């Protein structure tokens, strides 16, 4: 077997608590499918037959019992539960499933919606015998108005600095603005080997990584690393240019950490030493070099290599903020071709449903309603003379007559009273909006949720 897929679905959705306090993030409906369906569909399309899904007990229960959550994937899902309150990072989760990992792994996050050609990422991993290969995409501006946001969008998002070489494939530098105190520091060893580096900031990390099996073993030894994106990836990128990985001799470092790291490197050497000579002979006889201008051999003799595939076009979203969630709902229908109006929905004839709207199963849409650019969830009831524009209505919502909903997100099981006028609001789960209410740009959630900080 070549690659095992690992799907991280235990995240809490900390940046969109309004949406996720009742529904776990992996099961948030996007285009009337649970969020977790999208990465699973991506894996299935590419040809995977089994996936290890790391998730919480709550999600597992909901997947097996809730009829609204239908994951029609043909792959075999191996659900591994972790404690919700254990505060495990993604790397901790990998350490948890270390026993199941038998080959190189492809780690995905449950909030990734993309139509990327995965073979580009995996080809880099295969062809260059890389330790890490990841996917990134050019970030797109979110154009939709986010409900509940007061004032202009603050650019509070921390920027990522990604340094690549001339070909745009080799990853040389990765740092987040939060980790940099005063300025960007680039080591001399990198500059000596790669004098030309392109540093990009407008990239979105798709959180899709191909990792070698030895990295998982390394994580098992180094318990201090808890997040793949935050700690492991920058560590591996830095390690490409450190001296210990370049020399095959055992270093007698006294520093404890370095010793552990060397043991990892030695582990890597041990695994491949059997056929290492032949590979070395091949590289020696092959007249290929990945860089030119200096006297070093291919890859500068380094054994640890990190590669990145940067997508120019195509959909790539990480649904971890409200804005991303709304944007994803607009674009997700393009990823699958099911009919916009579900066959089991009861739609009366005198209603106006725009071409880019999605109506879920078992809906009841009454007369004289107008639904434009919206997503209506499963088992939702929409009464007469309702105007829904640019909104996301989740499952089980009841919208009484004469309502006007614009640019809003209505969570599951909410009830919108008669004649209400909701503009750019977020109505939490199971909330009731009283009739003839007029709400603009508000987040309406229950009092129990308000207590969460």
């Amino acid at each position: 077997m070549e690659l095992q897929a690992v799907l991280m679905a235990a995240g809490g959705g900390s940046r969109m608590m309004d949406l996720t306090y009742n529904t776990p993030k992996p099961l948030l409906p996007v285009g009337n499918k649970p969020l977790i369906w999208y990465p699973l569909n991506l894996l299935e399309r590419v040809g995977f037959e089994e996936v290890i899904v790391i998730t919480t007990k709550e999600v597992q229960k909901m997947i097996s019992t809730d009829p609204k959550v239908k994951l029609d994937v043909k792959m075999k899902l191996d659900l591994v539960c972790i404690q919700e309150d254990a505060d495990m990072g993604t790397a901790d989760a990998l350490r948890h499933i270390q026993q199941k990992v038998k080959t190189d792994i492809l780690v995905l996050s449950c909030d990734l919606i993309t139509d990327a050609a995965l073979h580009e990422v995996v080809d880099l991993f295969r062809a260059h015998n890389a330790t890490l290969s990841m996917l990134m995409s050019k970030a797109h501006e979110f154009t939709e108005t986010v409900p509940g946001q007061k004032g202009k969008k603050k650019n509070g998002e921390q920027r990522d600095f990604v340094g690549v070489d001339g070909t745009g494939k080799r990853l040389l530098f990765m740092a987040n603005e939060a980790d940099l105190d005063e300025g960007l520091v680039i080591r001399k060893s990198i500059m000596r080997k790669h004098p030309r580096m392109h540093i990009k900031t407008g990239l979105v990390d798709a959180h899709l990584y191909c990792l070698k099996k030895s990295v998982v073993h390394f994580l098992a030894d180094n318990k201090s690393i808890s997040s793949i994106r935050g700690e492991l990836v920058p560590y591996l990128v830095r390690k490409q240019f450190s001296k210990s990985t370049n020399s095959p001799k055992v270093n007698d470092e006294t520093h404890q950490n370095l010793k552990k790291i060397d043991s990892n490197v030695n582990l890597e050497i041990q695994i491949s030493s059997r056929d290492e000579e032949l590979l070395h002979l091949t590289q020696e006889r092959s007249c290929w070099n990945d860089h030119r201008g200096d006297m070093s051999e291919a890859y500068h003799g380094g054994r640890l290599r990190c590669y990145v595939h940067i997508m120019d076009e195509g959909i790539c979203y990480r649904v971890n903020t409200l804005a991303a969630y709304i944007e994803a709902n607009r674009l997700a229908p393009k990823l699958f071709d099911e009919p916009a109006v579900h066959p089991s929905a009861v739609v009366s004839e005198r209603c106006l449903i725009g071409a880019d709207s999605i109506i879920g199963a078992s809906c009841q849409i009454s007369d004289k309603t107008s639904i434009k650019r919206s997503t209506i969830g499963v088992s939702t009831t929409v009464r007469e003379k309702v105007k829904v524009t640019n909104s996301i209505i989740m499952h089980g919502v009841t919208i009484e007559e004469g309502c006007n909903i614009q640019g809003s997100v209505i969570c599951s099981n909410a009830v919108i009273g008669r004649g209400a006028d909701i503009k750019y609001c977020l109505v939490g789960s199971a909330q009731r909006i009283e009739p003839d209410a007029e709400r603009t740009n508000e987040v309406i959630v229950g009092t129990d949720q308000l207590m969460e900080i």
Partner: protein
Amino acid sequence: MADCGEADGPEKKDELVRAKNEGKELTKEEKQRLRKEKKQQKKQKDEKGPSERAKEKKPVAPSQPVATQPPTQKAPTVLPASAPIPVPASGAPSHSSPAPSPADKPAKSRAEQKAERRARQEADRASKQQSCSSSSKTKAPPSELNPVVKRLPEHVQVDDPAVVKRLAKKLERQQIPLRSDYGYKVSLFSHLHQYSRKAPLTQQLSIPSTVIHPSIVRLGLQYSQGIVVGSNARSVALLHAFKQVIRDYTTPPNEELARDLVNKLKPYISFLNQCRPLSASMGNAIKYIKKEISNIPSQFKEEEAKTKLQNCIDRYIEENVVLAAKAISKYAIEKISDGDVILVYGCSSLVNHILCEAYEKSRKFRVIVVDSRPRLEGREALRRLVQRGISCTYVLISALSYILPEVSKVFLGAHALLANGYVMSRVGTSQIALVARTFNVPVLVCCETYKFCERVQTDSFVSNELDDPDDLIVTRKGKTQLENWHDVSSLGLLNLVYDVTPPDFVDLVITDLGMIPCTSVPVVLRVKNLDQ
């Protein structure tokens, strides 16, 4: 053996053919019937004349090579000419005549028989010459009757839709995706494949590749992206990947390792062929490994067999690549004298090895590296030589005639040495050899014997490799002139990989068996075949 299927003997022929196809012996009744038919025909044709009779014998001729097949060993009683010796057709009828004639006409005297025989032979030869031209196009009934028919390899018949369809069917059976050709092909080379590097074969494979072993997928990618380049490197990488395949192989129940493993390797080889056409050295390595696998005695346990195969692979690489390089450099160093100016072309791993060894043995020489677009492999050769401390000059091939007066020797590497003495090497080598000959500079080709190939080729058109045409596009100062070459219908970009150099331009070939002239390649091949 020219077989002219004549109209008179179709029934007999059909019967024989049917019998052979079914693999059964002719039953007694059939044999008797055939004998009777023959007697009758002979009586009829006796009046017509010897030439007709000679033609009569032709239908018997096709059956002769068939007689060599095991199921028809009893047939010789009916087909008297079918002695186990595959005799040429002209001689056959003469053999066939004496046997039935004693049965038919016991009264005839010996002298008369001899005269008849001779007359028939002459007539036969005459008619054979006449009908030779017409019959050359008509093949023998099924090709199994004619074991000498050689099929053209499919990779040089891309413009023939039947061949392409056959290949597609074969790949479908092996569950390997078909790689489609790209771009407009120059008409002289339209019989060859032309692929684009931006459309790798892995696009159509499932990502955790189950049909093809992961190390083979990796190897295919490395070939198609140009990470493993060079005849030696490709063979070593191939054998390395095969070692991993063998290591991960388990014999399925009720199967023999010797047969099943060979069948397992076939789709992998097709896959690699699709990624990049196989080189001659790779072909020889594959033949060797297949032979080794099929020679594994059945009483070997799986682990033993696997270890034996891995040791065989290691030994093959050690002997044919590593030790051969040592031997060749030993011979070549004799040819390098102090003060030499040596010209090399592109990046040949063997030539680089020789030069580095010579430098270590304290020969004083300098090197001129000649390079050519679009591969610009000479840069890598330059880097390796300069890293060792050898003083080098670098020119492009367009400056060849300018620089050649300084040169005392030319060392060239080879991709393969063909059986007629032609050297197949990177495109541009033949030009180097030609200009060097004009300047009376000795040209020495260095080549290991495992790259010797039984193919015969006299030009670079028949069998070659077309690389990605987009490699020829270059961007200078932000402008890419050939960006939209697809839109210009009369424009074709040609990126050839190999060319052949005639033996007249090569003065010496240095192999691990010694220094031989170019024309001795068939001798080496024959000796190698005898060894095996």
